[in-house]
């Protein structure tokens, strides 16, 4: 049992799985000697050698396209895309090939691959270093999309991804890479892809979120509780696709109210899918419309204004208030 931050938990998961499974290889920009710009792969090239951990040319489509070939050839590549803003050049290889290979070849070729991607805002970074594109990939059948919100979850979910026979986009919220530490077992454990986590239980309202926003939600809930507010249940989705609708449904059937929180733009963000499903599944139990607290329908602003863009505890609290008052 060690006290680790999210970066260290991912690093540990990679080490342990690479020792178990020699088909796992890591590739990407600056992940070798440099250990990645966030140091997530620190020490791995030294430990596993240049055949298993290697730097690539600076080309994201190439990184993913090569990885697809590696996966078709029987390995489990773990490409790192340096920032989510640079997924764009790889969009076609991910959506036209990785997502389709199994289905278009009726299983003759498959793409077991875990794409690691730092995601989200709040770290004062330059342009295109602060976005949240998870909904784009959740709308693309054939992919799995994971976004942990804690070191413990990160390790357990990454191990599952590294053992998954299908392509997984593993989004790492950079805002909480080093925000806090928690106990993370050295011993092997996995967290199932597709299952949510109930962070705290409550009876009056359900908050659904994922990634760094979960932390904002916890703050808002604490305040609400301190000030004797409603009893709130917080669900951390953990995986965006497949997503744990059963957990959300059970909770909202109980509470009758729901607030969804994410950093990505509102329109067609994944919150819209959750809101639509809740209506479909819990229509008769709903006491208020599902509230969405999300990024706005604008480009993520440069860092001087980024905190005005990102959902924060205040906006979450306001949504809880509105939803309860409805």
């Amino acid at each position, binding site marked *: 049992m060690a006290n680790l931050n999210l970066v260290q938990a991912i690093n540990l998961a990679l080490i342990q799985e690479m020792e178990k499974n020699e088909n796992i290889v890591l590739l990407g920009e600056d992940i070798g000697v440099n250990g990645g710009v966030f140091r997530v792969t620190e020490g791995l090239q030294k430990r596993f050698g240049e055949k298993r951990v290697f730097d690539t040319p600076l080309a994201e489509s*190439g990184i993913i396209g090569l990885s697809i*070939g590696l996966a078709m050839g029987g390995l489990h590549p773990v490409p790192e895309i340096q920032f989510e803003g640079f997924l764009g050049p790889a969009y076609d290889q991910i959506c036209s090939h990785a997502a389709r290979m199994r289905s278009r070849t009726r299983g003759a070729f498959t793409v077991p691959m875990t794409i690691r991607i730092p995601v989200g805002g709040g770290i004062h970074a330059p342009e295109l270093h602060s976005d949240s594109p998870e909904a784009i990939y959740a709308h693309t059948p054939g992919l799995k999309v994971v976004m942990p919100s804690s070191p413990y979850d990160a390790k357990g979910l990454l191990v599952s991804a590294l053992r998954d026979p299908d392509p997984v986009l593993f989004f790492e919220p950079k805002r909480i890479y080093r925000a806090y530490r928690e106990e993370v077992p050295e011993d092997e454990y996995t967290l199932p892809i597709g299952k949510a986590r109930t962070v705290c239980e409550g009876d009056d309202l359900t908050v659904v979120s994922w990634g760094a926003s979960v932390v904002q939600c916890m703050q808002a809930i604490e305040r609400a509780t301190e000030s004797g507010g409603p009893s709130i249940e917080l669900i951390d989705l953990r995986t965006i696709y497949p997503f744990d609708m059963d957990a959300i449904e059970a909770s909202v059937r109980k509470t009758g109210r729901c607030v969804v929180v994410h950093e990505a733009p509102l329109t067609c963000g994944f919150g819209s899918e959750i809101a639509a499903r809740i209506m479909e599944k819990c229509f008769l139990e709903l006491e208020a419309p599902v509230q969405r607290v999300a990024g706005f329908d604008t480009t993520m602003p440069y860092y001087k204004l980024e905190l005005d863009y990102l959902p924060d505890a205040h906006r979450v609290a306001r949504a809880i208030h509105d939803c309860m008052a409805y």
Partner: protein
Amino acid sequence: MPITTAYETKIDRISILDEHGNFDEKLGKGLVPDADLVKLYEAMVSCRQLDEVAFRLQRSGRMGTYPQNMGQEATSLGAAYVLRPDDWMVTCYRENCGLFWRGVPKEAILLHWMGDERGNAMPKPHFVTPIYVPLGTQMLHAAGLTMAGRYQGSDRIACTFFGDGASSEGDFHEACNFAANLHIPVVFVCQNNFWAISTPSRINSAAPTFAQRGLSYGMPCVQCDGNDLFATVYATKQAAEYARKEGKPAFIEMVTYRLGDHTTADDAKRYRDQAEVDAWKARDPIIRIRDFMVARKLWDDAKEAALREKVEHENAEAVARAEGIAAPHRADFFDSMYAETPADLAIQRDTMHTHSLAQDPSQLPPEA
């Protein structure tokens, strides 16, 4: 010296059996044993005949859009003849002749164009990938497949095919660059058939050759007459030996011509002159080999007639197998998405024609 030379290079052009029947003994002698030559010829004729059959199938509504290979048989066949059975051959959609040589069942290709994914379930032992639709994307997979093989201890290489048009895609550049810099032995074959649908090759490259596309990456580059089977064999042999020995990529431009329309959905008369097509008909790779064999008493009209009959029969059987396959099951496209079908997707599958998607069946009255 203020002005020095930073780099200097030269690209060869290989031609062994030219359109006038001139054969270069020095390069050509012993390159392809007579017995093999006959088999290769038969393969080209068979592929050509299947093209005609496929065309008729499309016209009679028994197949969707189909891209004929006519005129380009010698490119992929020459490569397939040289490659080891366990080398990867990663192609686009105009390399039927090479794929069939490696044992890919003809019905697989037919099924693909009949709108049936089962045509893409390529048998692994052939080390080929299914037809690729998005241009320029497959070469990166060729590099990955080869790197995986090396990782697993094999000295397998890959040979990947793409067109003059596809070489304009960014992924082409990235594939070449990755292979060269990460030392992945891939033979890149650009099939320059002068057209990308209606777009003349000069719009895809203003350079004197497509072969020089490989110079950026420091690859050995060569151009060859793609309608000369001996030349495609020779060029691929050299490139494959280099790649396997050095563990590095090589680049070949095979100059050929698309004798038919781009696909059955295309009408080439809209954008190119018949004169140009006729000139290239005279350079047909099949005629060239037949004349060569006849001159060497390896072939005659009787053999030709027998071959025609055999080929028509075989191809008819392939069509029968393709059309005889059971209709795909509606559920197929759900169950092939993931190793394990997510619960929500299973519900979509099971209720696809009985409920509207959004509906929780438990809340439903029976269908009216």
